[in-house]
């Protein structure tokens, strides 16, 4: 009887571990810096936040372009960092489309269509995301690799810098884990 009791306690502890392990949380690793993919990530994140799910976004590699503030400038960059800064889109409003970019005509057309169809702009989406408490984690290693500095990143209330381990830890406790 006592053994049974013990076994039951053990099982209870294990089931509560499982329940706590998977939170109502969405974690997305965003690696693409294409306008369409950033749009998709933001729309899904906003929908999840509206459903009261916690949302944690991990921006790395090409996606860092979307977090650049075109009004900010960073000093003291070496030549290669400057080249990267010069070649990559300066902020979320300068992103390219993964298809039909047509030397920048594609994004202009999409933006016009979005306005016509009452789809929120990326600016508005980031504002909503901030209001809903969506967390953005910036990949520290990508920042160094591409020569971006913290001074040129957008002002966003829930922004932090961390490594891949943080994403893995966040994703591990999320019920939804994606990669864009």
């Amino acid at each position, binding site marked *: 009887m006592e053994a049974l009791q013990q076994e039951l306690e053990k099982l209870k502890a294990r089931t509560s571990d499982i329940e706590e392990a998977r939170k109502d949380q969405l974690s997305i690793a965003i690696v693409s810096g294409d306008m369409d993919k950033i749009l998709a990530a933001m729309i899904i994140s906003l*929908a999840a936040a*509206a*459903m*009261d799910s916690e949302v944690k976004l991990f921006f790395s590699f090409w996606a860092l372009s979307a977090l650049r503030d075109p009004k900010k400038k960073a000093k003291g960059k070496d030549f290669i960092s400057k080249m990267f800064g010069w070649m990559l889109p300066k902020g979320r409003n300068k992103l390219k489309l993964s298809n039909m970019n047509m030397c920048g005509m594609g994004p202009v057309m999409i933006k016009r269509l979005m306005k016509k169809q*009452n*789809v929120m702009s990326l600016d508005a989406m980031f504002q909503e995301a901030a209001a809903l408490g969506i967390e953005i984690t910036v990949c520290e290693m990508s920042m160094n690799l591409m020569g971006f500095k913290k001074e040129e990143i957008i002002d966003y209330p829930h922004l932090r810098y961390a490594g891949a381990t943080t994403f893995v830890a966040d994703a591990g406790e999320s019920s939804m884990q994606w990669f864009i």
Partner: protein
Amino acid sequence: MTTEELRAVTVAKSVDARGTACPGPLLEAKKAIGTIDTDDVMEILSADEGTKSDIPKWCKKQGHEYLGAVEENGYFKVYMKKK
């Protein structure tokens, strides 16, 4: 509920989200839900077809009662009761 029943429901709050596409209506609904009391009915006006299927899912997750949708001229009225 039938269309007639829905039209006759007393609405505590009307959210006009016709000027915004997905996920705008859901965000508007989320903002407005805090301003009404339990058992109050809220209607969401949306021109976005997706709202008709999104709101029931949202209600189910949040534990609210989805009442139904009515098609108007060029938009939808979606009804839900706060629980």
